[in-house]
């Protein structure tokens, strides 16, 4: 081994970002691990989630109540227009009212470079993705946590499901105090 012979590179330190690679309908995506607050099993939805029957936003079928806020569970496969597969995990996103249904986590790794999305990709994908990253000769889209539900969609969901969630919360609290 020619140890110590390699030139020492000086200059700016390489900025890196921790990411989680996750699977959804046989497609691998990356998300910044800083954007994910909690990872849960889908089993935890049972009992804790309220069904959302608003057909205008088909990718949202469940909502979770967190204090005064509703967190909407987005089916990631449907969001990206892919064939849905049985999800196993939920990502609860940090500082967000969105949770994501995903198939599974591949691994956590580090990204050193985020490439801008090519300008020729000019439709919704510009909202969906922060850009592309290359890992081990693979190109992965890096999802934008803000790209899953717009403010308008959140307001719409609040308006259409808010009363239902409030009623559920009230019933839940009544059941808790019942002898």
């Amino acid at each position, binding site marked *: 081994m020619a140890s110590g012979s390699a030139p020492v590179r000086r200059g700016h330190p390489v900025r890196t*970002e921790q990411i989680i690679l996750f699977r959804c309908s046989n497609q691998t995506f990356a998300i910044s691990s800083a954007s994910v607050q909690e990872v849960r099993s889908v089993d935890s939805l049972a009992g804790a989630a309220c069904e959302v029957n608003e057909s205008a936003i088909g990718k949202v079928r469940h909502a979770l109540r967190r204090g005064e806020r509703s967190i909407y569970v987005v089916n990631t496969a449907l969001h990206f227009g892919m064939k849905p597969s049985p999800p196993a995990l939920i990502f609860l996103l940090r500082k967000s009212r969105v949770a994501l249904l995903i198939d599974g986590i591949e691994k956590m790794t580090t990204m050193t470079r985020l*490439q801008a999305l*090519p300008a*020729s990709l000019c439709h919704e*994908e510009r909202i969906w993705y922060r850009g592309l990253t290359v890992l081990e000769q693979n190109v992965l889209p890096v999802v934008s946590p803000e790209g899953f539900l717009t403010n308008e969609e959140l307001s719409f969901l609040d308006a259409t499901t808010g009363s239902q969630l409030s009623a559920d919360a009230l019933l839940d609290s009544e059941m808790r105090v019942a002898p």
Partner: protein
Amino acid sequence: MSWNEQTDSRSCVLLRLGERRFALAADQVAELVAPSRIFRFPHRTPEIDGVILRRGRTVPVCDLAEQLTGKRLTSRRFYLIAMRSYGTAKETVALPVSGECELIHADLTPAGPNDSPHVAAWLSHDGEVIEVLNLAALTPGIDPAAEATNREPAREARG
């Protein structure tokens, strides 16, 4: 002088899509490369197949054959890597072609008002009249002005 009397002598690259030949101005062509793995991910721009990797950079793949010949290419022998302008910026785009390309020098006749937007000019070569392509009309792209106001800054995580 009318539009069809003005000619301009330029270097062009002839490319083949199925049975037909087209041309691109040589200064819009970066290189011709062998097909490599296409990385596909969900998106809503139907003209783009996916991206390939060239020297660590992602290059979108745009098959022009369907628009120009009405049929998708069944075999892709090479990718012609072309430069596409977006306002003042330029970006590479990989164009699948079905045969080898040829660099020629020819007199170009500018496109006329009745020509399709994808025709930048015409040239004559080997007894064949060939369309010189206008990439901006054939490949999709963001409006640079709108993008400047909307987009998150293109982040290179590398410091």
